[in-house]
Structure formats: structure tokens, C-alpha cells
């Protein structure tokens, strides 16, 4: 289980990274924490000719307060978010603490998690529920993509070969906002079997509920979210029906587990 041979470079800034990616004609891959790409390289499932290590680019490691939002650099690690409470976005520390275990969190990054696009991962689900926006840097400059549209299918995103994730903008919910996040893992540090994230923000009149850990990107349960916002709760049948529509093909046990995850996220909020 050793990777096939590859070249490695460590660009100083985003421009240099983009140039290297473009120059490799699709044969290069960015690497950040290596916590997902590392195993793929070892299993020889990924065989890039060149690794562009973005993890030392300072501008990608910043956390900035933009007033109504937090801007989180792509190479901010899960551990950094775990250790630093961001006022208004306390959910991020809560989630970060539950990603894998500390050794993985010390290296794994938010941008890497989004780009890897594992449907069972935490950030794609949570950032979708928080209505975050992903900033993508490419040859023609930067573009913004809503977090809930960033993953297009399991392990597939809107990113082109010569683009990288630069940062994520997470809006601060209004006063009185409540959230719930529940994931079911068979053991500590494993990817979840079922997950759900909910944001209720009365001030901004939004209620966002997403189910994760499906065979596809996190799915919005808008009807259920509205019911919760209005009545404070939603029935198991309603949740099951919504899931059956958005993620058909789940067996009875799998569906039950996901209904439970949604119910528990609601209960927490």
C-alpha cells in the first residue's frame, strides 16, 4: 500500500498553485491535510503525477471576522476550529470536535473536506445548513458557489482541475437562532451512517434542514424545516416521506436510522 511515484511542490501563494495546476493538464492534484488524499494515494486509487501542497499558503489559513459573517480559509484545520470558538458560529466548534479524532483533525482541513466531497463528511452538510458560500479561485479569478450547490454528486464537485477552494464565508445567524446537529457513528471517529443539521433563524426568517450521509450530496428537507419553524416539530412519517423522495432506495433500517438522525437534530435545536 504505497503510492505510485509522484512529484511534489509547495507553492508560496495561490497564484503559484493555480499556475502549477494549470500546467499539469489535469494530472496534478492539490493536497492539503492529506487525510483523504493520503489513503487514496496509498491504495493507488488516485495517481496524480504532481501534488501541489497548498497547506502552507498563509492566505488560505486565515480566519477573518467580516462583521455579519466569518471567513474561513480553505486550509484552516478542523483542530483550529475546534480550539477557537467563533462568536455567533459556535456550531462550528461543536462540529469540528466531532470530526474523526484529534490526529486527523490536526491535519484535515475545511477546504479539503469540501473538495473531497464525501457525502458522509461533516462540513458539506453543516455548511449547507448554515447557508455558507464557497469562494473558488481559478485562472480567471475568483467565483462564489453556494455550499449547498458545491457538491454535485458523491465525491464530485463544481471544481475544475485548475481551481482550488480559497475560503468559505459562513453568515452569522441572527440573535435567537437555534441549531441542531446529530450524527450517528458506529464508533468514535468513524464517518457517520446518518446525519442531519438544522438551523432555525427567526430573525432572518430562515429554517434550513439537511440530511447527510446519503449516497448523494446533503439533501434539503425544506418542508420539514418549515414545519419545525412553525410548529416546533415534525412527525416521523413526514420526515420518512421526505427522505423517501429525496433519497429513494433506502432499506427500512437505513431509512429508520436517518429519520432518527433528523428527529434528534430537531430535538436538539
Amino acid at each position: 500500500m504505497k503510492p505510485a511515484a509522484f512529484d511534489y511542490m509547495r507553492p508560496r501563494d495561490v497564484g503559484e498553485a493555480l499556475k502549477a495546476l494549470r500546467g499539469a493538464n489535469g494530472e496534478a492534484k492539490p493536497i492539503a491535510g492529506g487525510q483523504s488524499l493520503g489513503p487514496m494515494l496509498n491504495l493507488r486509487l488516485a495517481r496524480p503525477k504532481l501534488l501541489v501542497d497548498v497547506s502552507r499558503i498563509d492566505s488560505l489559513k486565515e480566519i477573518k471576522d467580516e462583521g455579519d459573517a466569518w471567513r474561513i480559509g480553505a486550509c484552516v484545520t478542523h483542530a483550529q476550529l475546534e480550539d477557537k470558538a467563533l462568536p455567533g458560529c459556535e456550531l462550528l466548534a461543536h462540529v469540528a470536535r466531532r470530526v474523526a479524532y484529534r490526529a486527523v483533525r490536526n491535519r484535515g482541513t475545511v477546504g479539503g473536506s469540501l473538495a473531497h466531497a464525501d457525502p458522509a463528511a461533516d462540513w458539506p452538510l453543516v455548511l449547507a445548513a448554515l447557508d455558507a458560500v464557497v469562494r473558488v479561485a481559478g485562472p480567471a479569478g475568483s467565483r462564489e458557489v453556494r455550499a449547498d450547490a458545491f457538491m454535485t454528486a458523491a465525491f464530485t464537485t463544481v471544481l475544475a482541475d485548475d481551481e482550488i477552494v480559497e475560503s468559505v464565508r459562513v453568515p452569522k445567524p441572527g440573535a435567537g437562532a437555534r441549531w441542531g446537529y446529530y450524527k450517528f457513528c458506529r464508533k468514535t471517529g468513524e464517518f457517520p451512517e446518518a446525519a442531519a443539521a438544522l438551523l432555525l433563524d427567526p430573525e432572518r426568517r430562515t429554517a434550513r434542514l439537511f440530511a447527510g450521509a446519503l449516497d448523494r450530496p446533503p439533501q434539503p428537507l425544506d418542508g420539514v424545516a418549515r414545519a419545525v419553524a412553525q410548529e416546533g416539530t415534525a412527525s416521523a412519517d413526514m420526515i420518512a416521506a421526505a427522505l423517501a423522495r429525496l433519497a429513494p432506495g433506502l432499506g427500512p433500517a437505513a431509512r429508520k436510522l436517518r429519520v432518527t438522525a433528523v428527529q434528534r437534530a430537531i430535538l436538539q435545536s
Partner: protein
Amino acid sequence: MSAEARPGQGVGARVPRKEDARHLHGRGLFVPDMMLPGQREVAFLRSPLAHARIAAVRKPPGSEGRVFVRGDMPEVLPIVAPSTLPTFKLSEQHHLAYGKVRFVGEPIACCVGRTRAEAEDLAEQVEVDFEELPALVDAHQARLDPSIRVHEEWSDNLYLTLQLDNGFDECSKKADVVVKREIELSRQSMNPMEGKGTLAVWDDRANQLVLHSSSQTPHLLRVGVARFLRLNEEQVRVIAPDVGGGFGYKCIVFPEDLCVAWLALKYRKPFRYVEDRREHLVAGANSRQHHYNLTAYASKEGRLLALDAEVTIDGGAYSNWPFTIGLEPGQATGNLPGPYDFRGYRVKTYCVATNKPGFLPYRGVARTGVCFAMELMIDAIARAVNRDPYEVRLQNLVRPEQMPYDNVARKHYDSGDYPRALRMAREKLDVEKWRERQKRGEPDKRIIGIGFASYCEQSAHGTSVFAAWGLPMTPGYDQAAVRLTAGGGLEVRIGVQSHGQGMETTMAQLAHQVLGIDVARVQVVHGDTGTTPFSTGTYASRSMVMSGGAVVNACRELIPRFVRIGAHLLKAPEADCRFENGAVIAPSGSVSLKDIAEAWYMRPERLPENVDRAGLEASVAFKPKRDTGAFSYASHAVAVAVDPETGQVEILDYVVVEDCGTLVNPMVVEGQAIGGIAQGIGTALYEEQQYDANGQPNASTLADYLIPGPTEIPAIRIFHIESPSPYTEFGMKGMGEGGAIAPPAVIFNAVNDALRPLGVEVRDTPLTPEKLLDAIERAKAVPKREAA
């Protein structure tokens, strides 16, 4: 944890392990740490198919001397592991696949590089043309349909069929109730932290092939390598350095060992193969998979009268050397009756060849399976007669006044109070507290359950037992060699191998008990055929009883020699001298072992002409007074919380009451129990290698093959009973495997206790959330009925 520690450093003392410091500082030396000049790394091209004929193999151009197939190594004999058990069929395993591949992961070509990555690059370029054959994945199907065969020269797919009938008809006739169950365990990998690995070197000076190998049984490996490479044994030396766990995985000759050995012989350079986790999970999924159809015959009080069993063991593709595929069915057949007193037993055990890695004996060898089956049965009987499983279990256990007890499978239980362990477990768990809580209901809607499981475990079984299985080797006397050093310390050489069991400490404690030498001054040498006496090695919970017994006797052998020299130095008649606490004492004074050693080695002028020339070294062979095994036993008790909405099981309390005879070091015993229980929890709740219809394993990384981590293992409370074995030195019994035996049984019994009101009874490992949810959902769908 309980055991009142005995003071000092001898038998019963909680002496901290001598081996811990190097491991905690990362200074252990394992095969993967070794680096010799000119060393080459070896990787294998492994079969991607479960069952196929090999039509052609094409090596990459320019790979001469770096890629090898079976035909390139004509000197190597196929691995054949005969057994004298009736109906046993031989399998022939070539060190590299020959003609056919029989499981996914079977090595086909051996590739050499300066680094492992380079060797893997080569392996990727080897092309193989396969003619795919239908894969035998289900043992029942493989048994019933001989049209496709794993070994075509056989008439069917059965390695062997064992049968036993002892009083079945007569006893079953008297039954009031008949209880039937189908019970199943999944296929597992053993997952030692360090996989297998061997570094082979030709030593010109010694004129020897030296294998540094992660082995539990270096002497057996030496015999096997010499045999299959057609060498004389003197030409082979096996050194097991630090070994990162074994669990039974490392007590055989592996095809990979033969490959690196052959390379070292041919090219006179060091060659190393180190298994990685993916190889281990795929090509090493070789244990635990049993299936049981059981029918119990009981009185209306739940007294077990007779048991009828059909056991199917999924043996995989090959029989290993030297333990053979016969060991598992043999153990299953003989141990199924467990610690219970009943007189009617009929069993038929099939061991079936399938397209999976060949079965190996995993910690507990068959007993995890039989305990699971038997303990679920006891609970099922209790339900059928509407009594508390604890009461039914208690009334069926062999009673202390029946000891020694010859059971229905003709096992000889040497000593102990089985009911006492169960009663103590109930008391320590505080059953009333849990029943109360169960009745009250949990605020989070989880359901409480409690369960018990009891077992007894044949340990340190010797010649007569193994001879009946007719393996290529039978353990007999174990030897130990002890030597007083010139400085008054002691060297102890043993042929077993310690790889986590703490023997560098516990063997030293035994020597201290006899000779009074400080444990720090006792150097235990093990794992090297060049420096230790022959032993079949570390397996079957035998090392303490067998090798430890030999250490005790070798130490005792030195005492009269000390007294003779001491008496001379003290100028006292020998009859007036005695040996005590590391000194020879006469009425006139005393001399220490240091003085005696100094006189013998450095100052012979102080000794008389007619001195005893036996010297201060002794090698003594030992076996217990009776070699049918010293039976350890235990009862485990747990309380669990089951979440009916997620299928998650949490262990809230885990109690063990165990009796392994005289404790040499309670701390080491507890460590062994905890480690075993962690593995047993894996069997119960997490571990499983699944195969698709083509024989493809579903799990190839630890992301798919779950093993419990620290947060999944509860605080385990261990209590001891000490019933010395009448047959062993100090009354010690083996206990290395016990922890891994009962957890699946006790956890399933607790979960079934919790879910009884829902009409759910689970009976196949592992108990995944999905399986549990499915069972609950299905139970909801059918009108409630009592399972009987």
C-alpha cells in the same frame, strides 16, 4: 480490580512489566524496524479473483531477477498439513499460486524492489490471464453441491466431518421441552497491531539462513522452513524480535516466509516482506466463521439433558501447517458442551472448503463460537421454560463437588467452582439495581438489558490431546535453561515467545519465587532458535503452565548445586546448610549467590578438587502431571443500553469473575483479560469480513472493517478466584485466550434480555445497528409472540 496482591516479586505479585519501558519509549525492535545493508523489499501480486484457473502469467520486460512465480522456485515444496483425524482430506498450498487461485489475495508473483513502493510498481505490471470459475462463498452450499470444488482432486468440498454421540438417545427421551436455534458467527481477521513479516538473510559465517520473523512459534517455523525448502534444520535459525501481537495468526508457516527465505538462499542478500493492513484484511480473513443448528432437550425446570448439534465451519481454501484445518472443528466438537453438567450429546461437525483465506486458530480457538452458541442456547432454554436465565445457567453448571469432572465430550475438568464465579458475577454486577432501572425506563428511551455467560477453557493441553488431533506436530515436554551468571544474576532461556503476554516479567517472577533473585536481575531470553531450547511455542494458553513449569523446575535443579558449593565456602557440612532467599545458610553464616557464582566462574581455586561439575547451568524438561489441560473458567456479566431508534448498543457495565488457578501476576492476567474482551467486543458488535457472490471481500481497509477503539471498550471490572490446578506447578492455569471467548455471548444475551418485550432475539454476529434495527422493524411487523 480485586486480587489482593501478594507482596514482593514472586508468584502473585503485581510486578510492573519489564518490557513496558522500551515499548513506551518507542524503542522496541520489530521486523519492520530492521534495516540491513543491501536489504530488498518484497511485495506480492495477489489474486483479484476468488476462484480461477491461471492461463498465463506475463512478467514485465526487464524484470529478470526481480519477479518470481511458482515455476521459478522449483526447490520449494508445497505446504501440506496432514492430520490423522478420520475423513481428513489434504490440501496442497503452493507458496505461489499454481494452476489455480483459490481466494482473493492469494499470492501469485513475488516482486522485489529497493523499496516497497518499487516492488509494488513491479507487481502492478505483471499480467495474468485468468479463466474465472464460480466461487464457493457459502459453506452450506459448498458442502451440499460438489459439482464445483475448491480442490478438484477431491470428491466434494469437505476437509473433514467429525461425529460424536454419547448417550444422546437415552437422555433426550426424558426431555419435557425441546428448543431449537440457528446461530452464526461472521468471518474475521485477527488484526494484530503488527501484521506478519519476515526478513530473511543468509549468514555466511554461521552458514545459516536466518529468518527474523514476527512469529509466535520460532522453533516450529524453523522446522517448517527447513522442511519446505529441503534444508537441514541446523542451516536455519529463526529469530522472533519484538512481535506486535499474534493471536494465532503467527503460529504457522506462511507462503510469504518461504518466498523471502528462498530469495535469501538464492541471492545471499537480505529480503524482507512486511504485510500491510490491506493484505491482512483481505488475505488474512481467516477465523471465527461458524454456523450452528442446535437442539436442546431440557426438563421443564430448564435442566439441560441432551444437546444435538450440527456445526459448520467455513474452512477456507487451505489447511495451514502445522496446526491444520482439523484443529478448529476438533475444538468445536469437543468444547461445545462448555461448563455444563449433562449426559446426552450428539454432534456432527463439517469443515468445508470455500474460496476464502484458509482458517487459522484465533485466540480462543473455536471456543468463542461454541460459547456463543451454548450460552445463547441456555438463555433460549430459560425463555422456553419461563425462568431467569441466570437461574437456569446456575443449575446446569458443573458443581464443585463433582470435580474433577469428565464431561459428555470426555473432557477432564480439573478443578474449580463454576457456580461460584456465576454467583459472584451476579452480585458484582448488582443485578437488582439494573432490574430496577430496567423497569423504571430510561429518560432517553433506551432499553436496559443484562446478560450472563459462563465458559471453561481448556488451557495448556498437551501430548495426549494433540496426539488425538494428529497434527504434524504434538507438543510434549517444554524445556527451560537457566544459568547463574558470574555476577549472581540469572539468565532464563525459554522456547516459547512473548509478544504482549509479559513473559519477560512473569517468567522472572517464577525464577524469583524459587531462587529469590531480584526480578530485575533475571534476564529472560526467548524467541530465538539459536539461543533457546526447543518448544512448540506460544499458543493454546500454554506458555505459563508448560514453559513456566520448566523454568520452575530448572531453577529448583540448581539449588542442591548452590548448597554444595555454599557448604564448601562456609566450611560447613552440606547437611547443615539450606538454601533460602538467594543465599546458602549454615549455622556459622551465609554466602550469597553472588559469592557462589564468583567462586565457580572466577575463583575456582576456592573450590575442592571433587567439586560437582554440573555447574551453575541447568536445562530441564517439564510437562504437567496430567496433560489433558488445566481448565480455567469465568463468568462474564454485562448491563447494556439498547437504542431502539438507532440500533446502537452501549455497554454500561462489564464484570468478569475469572479463575485461572494460581495467579502469577494479577496485573498481567487482568491485562490479558481486557485485551481479549476488547477483541470479543469486536466479534460481538463490529468485526466482519463480508463477501459478495463472487467471493470478493467487502472490507479492505479499517474504514470498512471496524474494530473497537478505546471509546468502545468500557471500564472492565475483573475479580479473581484462585482454585489451583492439581496438575501444574504452583497450580497455575493458562488464561491468555479466555477474555476473547465470552463477550459475544454475554453481550447478545444482554441485548436479547433488553429486547424481549419487543419479541426480538438476535443470534448472528456482528450485531450491527442496521441488523438490530431490521430485527426490531420486522418484529413490529408481525404480531407479538414469545420466541421459544
